[in-house]
């Protein structure tokens, strides 16, 4: 089965570029250029060098002896939390800033939820000396303060967004509006595999470095490139797309994506798009979407700002529909529990987002010789204020 995007930007019925005419020239330019730029040797050389010397790749693949003992199997953590700025998001922003430079853009905009993508964008803008504006929902500004301060330190302008639920969806709307108003000098670095074509494919390709590394790292550890399971959390789906990419055509590898079900899928406070959504159009692509019967987008909820999104990347909708990827979910409490567990078994404080992937370890019955990779998409420093609130309940 082919899981790649087709010529018109679709994955089956999902994807496309549902954008107003004002955005068309920029999207067209990107669509016509991105594959050429990605394939260009000077681009690849610069990207590889930055990923290695600047971002600290390859990130380790670490076998957790204690988790493996606890679940009586073999559990590996892909340590994206050790990449520069503390999450996988930097893989995408390094790639896109190099693309933006090649398109002659001098001003960068981004949306951010947890602030990790905002920080990763502000970081590469500082590195390249480009102006940076980051849109962030007012609620997220409050719950992810450390990242707001990091962005400011890095010289980015952080614009709080007051519309809607004041979270990631609304920040994305505002970034799109900025781009409509600044069509010439600006590149929009989208932080996940969402948005109009070619963003989902472009960001997937830039994040695919995660599974590219996993292949040889697993071979070193286990003698085989292929694990039995790969588990990743999904907000928009970029760390999942990156960690699944090189295994999509290996049907024996079970790919598991974990959405945030907040206070429970039936609680009315959830972000489990695959359970609660149906096909619709948001932010330029046709994808699974949480919406009411009139097609109005439903405000999602998750304790984790990075998973608090009513849609999902169109490739994931296709992977869901075809059954190639299994979509599961974890609640706030399950994620918190998994986060505290990892800090005490391994001395690693995971991001709340990544904790949703870890929570799945409790839901699957593994065999002793299974090889399980959990993509630890980011570190939890930014979530300390939230964690502290729950310290007494979970330890």
């Amino acid at each position, binding site marked *: 089965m082919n899981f790649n995007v087709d010529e*018109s930007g679709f994955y089956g019925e999902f994807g*496309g*570029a*549902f*954008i*107003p*005419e*004002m955005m*068309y*020239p*920029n999207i067209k330019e990107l669509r016509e250029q991105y594959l050429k730029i990605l394939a260009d040797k000077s681009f690849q050389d610069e990207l590889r060098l930055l990923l290695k010397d600047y971002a600290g790749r390859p990130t380790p693949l670490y076998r957790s002896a204690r988790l493996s003992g606890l679940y009586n199997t073999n559990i590996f953590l892909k340590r994206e939390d050790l990449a520069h700025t503390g999450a996988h998001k930097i893989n995408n922003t390094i790639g896109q800033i190099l693309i933006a430079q090649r398109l002659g853009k001098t001003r960068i905009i981004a949306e951010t939820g947890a602030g990790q993508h905002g920080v990763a964008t502000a970081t590469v803008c500082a590195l390249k000396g480009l102006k940076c504006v980051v849109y962030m929902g007012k609620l997220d500004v409050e719950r992810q303060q450390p990242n707001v301060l990091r962005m400011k330190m890095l010289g980015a302008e952080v614009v709080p967004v007051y*519309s*809607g639920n004041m979270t990631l*969806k609304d920040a994305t*709307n505002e970034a*799109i*509006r900025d781009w*409509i*108003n*600044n*069509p*010439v000098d600006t590149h929009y670095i989208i932080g996940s595999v969402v948005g109009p074509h070619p963003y989902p494919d472009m960001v997937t390709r830039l994040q695919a470095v995660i599974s590219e590394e996993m292949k040889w790292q697993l071979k070193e550890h286990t003698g085989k490139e292929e694990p039995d399971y790969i588990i990743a959390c999904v907000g928009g789906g970029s760390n999942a797309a990156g960690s699944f990419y090189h295994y999509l055509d290996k049907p024996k590898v079970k790919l598991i994506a974990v959405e945030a079900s907040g206070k429970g899928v039936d609680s009315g406070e959830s972000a489990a798009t695959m359970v609660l959504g149906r096909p*619709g*159009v*948001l*932010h*330029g692509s046709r994808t699974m*979407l949480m*919406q009411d*019967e*009139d*097609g*109005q*987008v439903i405000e999602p909820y998750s304790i984790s700002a990075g998973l608090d999104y009513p849609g999902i990347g169109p490739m994931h909708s296709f992977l869901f529909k075809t059954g190639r990827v299994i979509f599961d979910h974890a609640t706030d409490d399950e994620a918190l529990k998994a986060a505290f567990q990892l800090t005490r078994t391994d001395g690693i404080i995971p991001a709340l987002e990544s904790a949703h992937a870890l929570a799945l370890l409790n839901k699957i019955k593994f065999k002793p010789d299974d090889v399980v990779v959990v993509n630890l998409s980011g570190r939890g420093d930014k979530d300390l204020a939230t964690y502290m609130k729950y310290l007494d309940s979970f330890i």
Partner: protein
Amino acid sequence: MNRINKLFENKKQEILSVYFTAGYPGVNDTREIIKQLAESGADLVEIGIPFSDPMADGPVIQKSNDKALKNGMSLRLLFEQLKDIRAEVNIPLVMMGYINPVMQYGIGRFSEKCHETGIDGIILPDLPFDVYMQEYKQVFDRFNLHNIFLISPQTSERRIKMIDEASNGFVYMVSSSSTTGIRGSISKEQEDYFVRLRDMGLKNPKLIGFGISNHKTYAHACKYAQGVIIGSAFIKALDGEGSLKEKITRFVKAIRG
């Protein structure tokens, strides 16, 4: 003949098209707003279908969308409100909104309802050209609905020609690279773009929209196109003092000058 074509056949200049968001300020104001606009001398009315995430809109229309949804507006309710509107209003009526509510309503059912109601055209800014050609054109044509396309200052000449070719009714010329909203005056750069478009000699008439807000910008834009579209400024005017009739009469008068 479609009322839009008839309008442009009979009137060659100073066409005033007004956009409002259905459900704003009050959920039941829809009919009265349309009637008063027609009586005050607006030539065309764009009925906005509210959406939770209006990505091409500035603050004023965003706010009217939010409020309209809070008031309980939906496509279903809108069609109920517009039932038999043709007994009272003769000017062309166009529905404008984002694609998702229309898609969820069902494109076939939507088109049929529009036809039944006496709607003449549709503006869906986030419906891509190729998807329109493949999935929508046939249905719209069957129900005599004109799809109105947008062009912006960044739209290439080749694409403008393609859009003109596929259009029927009029072409919606976005006045500057921007979201909707009120701007002070028309710049030299915008003027150059208006002239460029005028000189291209499109087969369709053009209406200039986005940023037209008062008599001055109206008169200025009318020099380069068959007329204008006003949205945000009208919605702001609805917030003012007085009855809908008074506010709307005053507004149209002030624009016409």
